[in-house]
């Protein structure tokens, strides 16, 4: 069980499909304000209806081609993995050794992005094939699928770019948005991001533990220990395979190559993992953190309509332009906008869906953030640099006396509110 709710279930009537997800609706009936500066409520509704229709049209057209596609990608990934593993067993001949590293890295990229990420979104559940079932699939990454899915599929994809709810804004490590409070460690934004890039899979695993929630008391000890146990078990399996089993097999090469053969295999696998880490980091950061991407606060998003939900996804993501192989290697997450609008549509359909989305955006006069990887990356780097510097506004500095006073005032107001409610019920 990845998500246990402690409050009384709020009734969310999925029939309408046009209300905010449960925890973001309140009894005030006041509607969300997202997008009201650029569209009327009616226009937002028709925007939502158009996107719903596009989603259904695409889902209905799924068939054998999509099934063949994902199996073809898996087949290519597996051959790439097998040839890669053979290649790194030839440290005596550097061209095949290097090719082995590249192929193994490629296989891990394909497995994590176009296969793992997309399968775990349930994009291929309609096929009813147990080997690519979103519930059962486990990916080639130290982060256990279950906890990753909770943080990603649920929190990140439902509450996209809402401060305090989507924990993927800066991953609790970086300051990437002005509305995040600044702390002194953010001076090291750029070096921290570089380290995260190199060891991204470990960052994802650590993020899935949600240690912050546990320390704040938002998560029970049992839940935290269960997460820790899953993470340890998965890490053990991954490390055993990559850094013990195959290097031990490479002992057979020692008489022929020399004592260092197992180390060469270990080093090659390590390099392949780093290649995958860098690539996934770049794709994800370029899809979420360029300058024009917008973030929201909870109040804006309370009681949002279906159209507003879609709009938030649109404004909260950015695309990367490129060639077809590039899109496939990115798991089609170069179409981050389409992915956020329709996370359960097989990603190979995003390019065709994108044409219609751009058309819809043009008609409604909405921004559609896309650009070359170099442009998006530069923007991300600039953001990290800008928001790493101490802001002049003391309210943006997390530990300034002004911010502390503000938080204290908020806490007291909340307590007073609670007491009044208690008094009234009594």
């Amino acid at each position, binding site marked *: 069980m990845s998500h246990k709710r402690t409050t009384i279930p709020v009734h969310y009537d999925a029939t309408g*499909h046009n209300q905010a997800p449960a925890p973001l609706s309140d009894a005030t009936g006041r509607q969300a304000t997202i997008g009201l500066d650029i569209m009327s409520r009616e226009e937002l509704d028709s925007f939502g209806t158009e996107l719903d229709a596009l989603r259904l049209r695409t889902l209905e057209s799924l*068939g054998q081609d999509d099934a063949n596609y994902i199996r073809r990608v898996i087949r290519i990934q597996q051959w790439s993995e097998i040839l890669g593993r053979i290649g790194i067993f030839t440290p005596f001949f550097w061209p095949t050794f290097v090719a082995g590293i590249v192929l193994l890295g490629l296989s891990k990229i394909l497995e994590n992005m176009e296969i793992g990420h997309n399968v775990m979104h349930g994009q291929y559940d309609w096929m009813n094939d147990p080997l690519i079932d979103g519930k059962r699939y486990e990916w080639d990454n130290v982060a256990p699928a279950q906890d990753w*899915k909770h943080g990603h599929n*649920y929190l990140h994809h439902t509450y996209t770019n809402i401060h305090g709810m989507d924990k993927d804004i800066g991953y609790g490590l970086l300051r990437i948005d002005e509305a995040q409070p600044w702390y002194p460690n953010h001076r090291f934004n750029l070096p921290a991001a570089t380290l995260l890039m190199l060891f991204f899979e470990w960052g994802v695993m650590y993020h899935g533990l949600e240690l912050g929630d546990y320390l704040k008391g938002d998560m029970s000890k049992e839940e935290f220990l269960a997460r820790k146990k899953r993470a340890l078990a998965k890490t053990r399996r991954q490390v055993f395979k990559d850094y013990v089993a195959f290097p031990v097999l490479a002992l057979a090469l020692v008489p022929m190559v020399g004592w260092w053969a197992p180390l060469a295999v270990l080093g090659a696998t390590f390099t392949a993992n780093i290649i995958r880490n860098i690539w996934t980091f770049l794709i994800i950061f370029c899809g979420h953190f360029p300058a024009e991407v917008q973030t929201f606060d909870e109040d804006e998003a309370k009681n949002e309509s279906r159209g507003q939900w879609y709009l938030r996804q649109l404004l909260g993501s950015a695309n990367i332009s490129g060639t077809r192989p590039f899109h496939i290697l990115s798991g089609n997450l170069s179409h981050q906008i389409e992915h956020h609008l329709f996370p359960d549509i097989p990603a190979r359909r995003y390019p065709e869906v994108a044409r219609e989305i751009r058309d819809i955006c043009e008609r409604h006069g909405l921004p559609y953030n896309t650009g070359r990887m170099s442009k998006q990356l530069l923007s991300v780097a600039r953001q990290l640099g800008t928001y790493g510097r101490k802001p002049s506004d003391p309210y943006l500095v997390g530990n300034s006396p002004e911010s502390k006073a503000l938080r204290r005032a908020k806490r007291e107001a909340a307590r007073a509110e609670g007491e009044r409610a208690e008094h009234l019920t009594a």
Partner: protein
Amino acid sequence: MGVVRSALASRAVGSVTSPHHVDHYLEKLHPLWTAEAVRAKVVGIERETDNATTVTLRPNGAWEGFTPGQHVEFGVEVDGVRKVRVFSVSSSAASKGRNFSVSVKAHPDGFVSRFLNSRLASGELVYLSQAQGEFVLPAGLPDELLLLSGGSGITPVMSMMRTMLDSDVLMPRRVTFLHYARSRDEEMFTDQLDQWQDVPGVEVVRVYTREPDDGAEIQGRFSVDHLKHLGIDPAATLTYVCGPAGLIATVRETYTEQDAADQLRMEYFKVPTIDPALLEAAAAQASGTLSFDRSGTAAENSGNTILEQAEAAGLTPEYGCRMGVCNTCAIKKLHGAVRHVISGEVNANTDETIKPCVHVPVGDVTVAL
């Protein structure tokens, strides 16, 4: 399972292919080379009646065999979707070789059964489970045995009968094979049943309910009189019954009245149906029962989403967005039809993944919760 398959399915190999099962790789080399997943190739298709077919399968080495009376999950891939139904094995367990057959009557609304009858071809790949089910003969056969079936419910008892006749085990002193079909034309295995008329110790009685034979000794639907006429004492006869729900209900009542319920073994056929008229009625007013398989509870269908009904029944299923986005709540629906609340699409496959937060039951539904 052979030595090679056992080795491939071992933990040592698993730790090298982790996080994937070795079958994930093997099936890409050849779909039948899986170590644990049972798969088979269609090697024969034989027409039994106008709308019933016997499909002979050659399973891969992962198949562990069957006991007569057991059934098997039978999956075919159509337009990229694996459709799964459960069929009884109809062939003899004592025959040579590993091949076995299932016999299927096309149900007008049953997608897979119709597919089997019209489109399945020799050489095609079938996704199977291991044989399952407790509807099997006991180790020691009793003196008196009654195999009672109706319509396509004949398949499991056919397998029992064939196995008994093929093997060297001691036959019961008296075996009665009582079968109900609408007419001789609609009867499956007619030739084989004709042959058995002359086997000593075996009494084959066929009742055609719509077009009875002239001078047939018993006529019409099953009743206690049929047993009396055949001289069968329910209390002293181990009885296996398989067929439509109506037949089984009547037989069960009869046996209960005769104080012989402990002699009765039953197997239901669950035919998934989407009758458009029924569907509309069910959508307009919630009907049927929503059963939660794992927790062993059930509730009257209230018309709400399956997630909400499960919560109302006191279960705490996993969930996330509650709007069909995040897939956190996805579960297997085992039987019955469900409607997507947004698209209105109805899915009636056995064993398919659904999102309970955006699906409502249409009629009787069983989910793995």
